[in-house]
């Protein structure tokens, strides 16, 4: 009878610890990804701008938005994930 609240306490403590662990992991992942954003995407963006790249076709003047596609042989193109 007496052990129940105590057991409950330990279960709750364990859950709280696990929650804190997950939150810390999330925060760490977010920090790492933010770092990657500024250290990898940032320089890439500066380089792309310096080279005048327009990956989203925002600036490029054109008469049509249709882009011709080249299709490889159906069987071979299926094997690649990219």
């Amino acid at each position, binding site marked *: 009878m007496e052990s129940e609240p105590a057991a409950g306490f330990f279960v709750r403590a364990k859950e709280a610890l696990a929650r804190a662990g997950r939150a810390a992991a999330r925060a760490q992942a977010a920090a790492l990804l933010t770092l990657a954003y500024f250290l990898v995407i940032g320089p890439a963006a500066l380089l792309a701008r310096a080279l005048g790249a327009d990956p989203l076709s925002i600036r490029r003047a054109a008469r049509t938005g*249709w882009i011709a596609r080249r299709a490889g042989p159906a069987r071979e193109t299926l094997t690649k994930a990219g």
Partner: protein
Amino acid sequence: MRILGLSFDYHDAAAALVVDGVPVAAAQEERFTRVKHDRRLPESAARWCLARANLDAGDLDAIVFYEKPFRKLTRILAGSIATFPRSAAMFRRAAGAWLDERLWVGPRIERALGVPPSKILFCEHHLSHAASAFFASPFDEAAVLVVDGVGEWATASLGRGRRAEGGGWELSLDAEQRYPHSLGLLYSAFTAYLGFEVNEGEYKVMGLAPYGRPRFADRVRAMLAPFGDGSFRLDLDWFAFHRDPARAFAARFEREFGPARAPGAGDPAEDARFCDVAASVQLVCEELVLAMARQAARRAGSKNLCLAGGVALNATANARLLREGGFERIWIQPAAGDAGGALGAALYAAHALGRPPRWEMTRADLGPEHSTAEAADALRRAGLAFEEMRGEDELCSRAAGLLAEGKTLGWHQGRSEWGPRALGQRSILADPRPAEMKRTLNEKIKFRELFRPFAPSAVEESFGELFDAGSPVPDAYRFMLAVAPVREAARARLGAAAHVDGSARAQLVERGRLPLYHRLISRFGDLTGTAAVLNTSFNLKGEPIVETPEDAIATFAASGLDALALGPLLVARRPSGKTEARRRPWAASETPSDGWAW
């Protein structure tokens, strides 16, 4: 050759099994897990597909994923680079999701189904959509148009399908428009602005449009600068979907159209401004779909059109295509959204790896079925009194009688439907004549917005008398993919089915294709003089359509449905003491859909 197609990780995960070119089983994961729009790897659906055909995963020749994950990743990285430094939050969310699971599609499939990597293939997103239309259509040659939000890079594609020189058939996409210039994403941005859930509420925008005047159409056209050939370039000042994981539209929307509608705010049909915005984006969407289809036809030199991609579920745009597109015949994949990619990927691979015969999708019921014994067991466990009908004649007579008395009926018959529409296998049916039936269905069962009408199903013998269907070959009406005007003389007989503009998303029911459903509606016609019923999907708001007899019974118990038919077993009335509709919490629907552009 046995090929399993899979789509997952975005929304509406699904599996489809194609044996020697013929789809023998296809279903969405949500129907098994009961999580609406479940996007996880569809293990349950895949295992059911295999069991249905008495196969093991080891018997498969290939498993085909419906897109190219690495190509999609390059688009997301390019987007992050182009919008630096405003895309930090977007990058964090996307990179997290990719590192967690999306990069490992192949290994995850291997692990889940126990197949070697050499059997796992990847079909481009738009090729999957295109194949789901062309390889299921009746055509020897056709123009192909795919329009959706975005796959890898493509947001719209033009192509053709035809008989190949050496035998078999070939399908190719010859031109594409690329992200972020997307009709689907434009429509979704308006869906979010109007306070509906993206990837779910697009129907509501379409349903709201007839209440308004398209007085903002010029402003919508200005935000996408059309080139006149169906292609266009979005002015990204208006949008946030390309740089913000939580927002679809930028502040400029509210400056030009006024404050956005809060999700869950009151009836949008009572606010003329929101109706006008919906009418405007719907009109421009129709114009673009028409222009794209004409471009596809011109390039392919064909009078036939195959259509797929999420935008192909816009039944009002499809109706204009049927009338004004200049095509002889149009075939649209009923599962035009990304779930349908599972079927398309499998069909594409079947035709690329082998030379199977052509197959035409004439019915949508590719899902699981459940025996009468199972249904009887489930009814007994639930303590519901039922009668077993002696044959279809008695079933249809009794069911039609209940409908004619104004009762609402849960109709659970045969194999479940492929695609988002209930077409008479997992349907809630009612009398379409009294306008109040709309309110009754909403208050007792569906709990959905009152401004949306319910769709009617009519038998082929009276379809033309009730609706001005126009098109010579009514493929789209078989799968409820186009609206049609209700004829003036029939308005009074379809009080609950006609929208405010006098249109209805009518289903054509043919004796040769859906004999049981045809018989039921005919019997209702004998009793009432109107051979049509209201047909809405058998589910509560926010839940997936029911799959098993247990699901149907749970929905019957939790709603105010009057009667239930599970195969030949009829529950003709609600048990006393359980007559109150209990509105179930719909937790799953309240989680916003994730990752719609990344």
